[in-house]
């Protein structure tokens, strides 16, 4: 019997390589649960076809192109980077009528994208993270701030949101500088950013294609000693070799909603399957994106794009019957009975508004002894 295919666009190389492997595990865990509990569409197995986006829009679009027009796939989880997700949506999945759920693309642009309802995400927009980060900076008593951000929709959106909030709180942003990924040296950007001696650097970047380099070069040339990070740098890798300088620095990142048993259950299942779960974001949301797509396919009874799109909002409802992340069986029965579902996801309850965004929470994290620990959570 033919399998049911879902595409995944995960970066195994490039700027988000250190996230991709784990978010992919999230999707694999969902696949495992679904297949162990009898598959979907009357016993067909779920197959995940992954394409490495290389955290690079071009590779992402080329990969998505293949998923849609060659493999005939109409449901995709991905991509992580907003810089990849947006062109994939605009150039491939929207015109190709395929559903795309990103587990981590936080750019505000996604909210307003002209997408015929084909694009969703299981995280909140950066209009929220920006507020939290702006407040964080102000709460840390910084009066002035320089921002260096990756030149894509994520960097720009978050940059704008932070500036707005920080200025609202009376702070001054002395410099806001976009950078290109993968350069050997960011000394000129840093020199510009430091030129008016701001209190801290707020860095919006991904780990491997610039973030770590900027942190190190900022430190070793004495440009900055106070930092605020965002979700792209919530990875222990950033502290290696510079632990003593980063001790106590804080950052923001989307996190699971407090309460509800999804997150706990997810950690348990994940560690059973793959070992310890790292403090990185978006592993849970990747699981959820996969699970929700499966629900929608089951509901639609078809693998056609428009049907899946419509099914998503038909099947999920706040007041539906509760389904936990390990209860695929139950979900299928409910769908068969025509019931709506309240999905208690790995990152908390998953519900989309009419532009495909979902609710969520932003956490504040902190570097302690070279490790990343969650400090507090701010809810929308």
């Amino acid at each position, binding site marked *: 019997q033919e399998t049911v295919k879902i595409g995944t666009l995960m970066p*195994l*190389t490039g700027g988000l*390589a250190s996230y991709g*492997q784990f978010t*992919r595990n999230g999707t694999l865990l969902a696949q495992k649960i679904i297949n162990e509990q009898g598959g979907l569409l009357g016993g067909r197995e779920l197959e995940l076809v*992954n394409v*490495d986006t290389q955290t*690079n*829009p*071009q*590779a992402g*679009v*080329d990969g998505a*192109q*293949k998923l849609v*027009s*060659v*493999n*005939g796939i109409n449901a995709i989880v991905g991509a992580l980077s907003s*810089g990849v997700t*947006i*062109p*994939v949506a*605009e*150039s*491939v999945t*929207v*015109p190709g009528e395929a559903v795309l759920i990103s587990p981590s693309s936080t750019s505000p642009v996604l909210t307003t994208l002209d997408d015929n309802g084909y694009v969703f995400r299981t995280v909140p927009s950066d209009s929220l993270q920006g507020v939290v980060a702006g407040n964080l900076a102000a709460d840390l008593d910084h009066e002035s701030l320089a921002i260096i951000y990756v*030149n*894509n*929709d994520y960097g720009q959106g978050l940059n704008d949101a932070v500036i707005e909030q920080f200025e609202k709180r009376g702070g001054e942003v002395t410099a806001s500088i976009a950078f*290109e*990924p993968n350069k050997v040296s960011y000394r000129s950007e840093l020199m510009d950013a430091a030129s008016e001696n701001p209190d801290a650097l707020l860095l919006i970047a991904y780990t491997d294609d610039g973030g770590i380099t900027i942190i190190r070069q900022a430190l070793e040339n004495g440009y900055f000693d106070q930092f605020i990070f965002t979700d792209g740098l919530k990875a222990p890798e950033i502290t290696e070799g510079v632990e003593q300088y980063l001790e106590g620095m804080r950052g923001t990142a989307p996190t699971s909603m407090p309460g509800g048993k999804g997150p706990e259950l997810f950690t348990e299942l994940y560690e059973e399957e793959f070992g310890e779960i790292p403090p990185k974001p978006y592993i849970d949301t990747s699981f959820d994106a996969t699970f929700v797509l499966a629900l929608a396919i089951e509901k639609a009874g078809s693998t056609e794009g428009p049907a899946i799109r419509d099914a998503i909002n038909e099947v999920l409802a706040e007041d539906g019957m509760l389904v936990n992340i390990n209860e695929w069986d139950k979900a299928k029965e409910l769908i068969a009975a025509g019931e709506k579902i309240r999905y208690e996801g790995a990152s908390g309850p998953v519900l989309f508004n009419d532009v495909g965004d979902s609710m969520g929470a932003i956490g504040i994290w902190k570097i302690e002894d070279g490790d990343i620990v969650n400090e507090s959570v701010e809810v929308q």
Partner: protein
Amino acid sequence: MTFAGVFSYLVFFLIFVGIYAIMTLALNIQRGFAGLFNIGIAGFWAVGAYTSAIVTKGPTPDHLGGFGMPFIVGLLTAGLVASVLALLVGIPTIRLREDYLGIATIGIAEIIRLVVKNEAWLTNGVRGVSAIPKPLAGIFGSNYNLFFLLIVITVIVIFYYLSEKGINSPWGRVLRAIREDEEVVKAAGKNVVRYRMEAFILGAFMMGVGGALYAHFTSFISPEAFRPMQATFLVWIMLIIGGSANNFGSIVGAFLTWGIWTGTEFLTGMLPAAYTTQAAAVRVILIGIFLEIILLSRPQGLFGEKKYSSKKTAAEN
């Protein structure tokens, strides 16, 4: 894979082969016939792609655009703008020794890439231009790629014909002569610079059109697409494998090289995800080794240099 799957893969594959074949034919005019060492193909490719994207896209706040011209206008404008670029690049450099021209062209291609990257008002910078319209989209449904393949083939046929016809004419003879020894051609009263320029521009025109086709097919372009490896050296490899100065060989070279380039993807696709990086590396290493073996065993290329001639034998007389 099902039959339909195989078929749609094949079509997809052939479209890329076709676009590369256009690039290879164009390079063959420049290098194979006129001895012009252009290793800045990426630059012309990018200019063609962006031109057509900007000319055909509807209004957008992100970058220059909003002209909404038809596809065919996009193709021609792409060719023209690439030609103008060739003219500008050519004025200072076309007289130079061949390897100097090469290094100058690669430098200019890099500058173009920087411009594309940084001039966001024009090209939307590193984020790229997305949602580039596909001609007659929506009419062919799931057979759309097949239709696009037909467009590509039509372009190839036209270019192939013009190239063969040109090269077997006295015009081609002058070009080949320039490749051998400019002094002789000058002493025969021919304006060498003009001929070289013509060949350079003609090739650039074809590259521009190829670039436009690429933009419309992928519907998304960003500076990443025009890195020297994929956009320049791969074309060179195709030309060399097919046999320099051989139009037919150029096309076969494109087919084989792209076949290997993407074929190895299947092999590595079968490995577990944890090995993706390694697999990708192994894949490129294999391609490299394959290239070296071809060069060592058949340095003249699979088809060798075709004997183009304006007059073939004494017998004709």
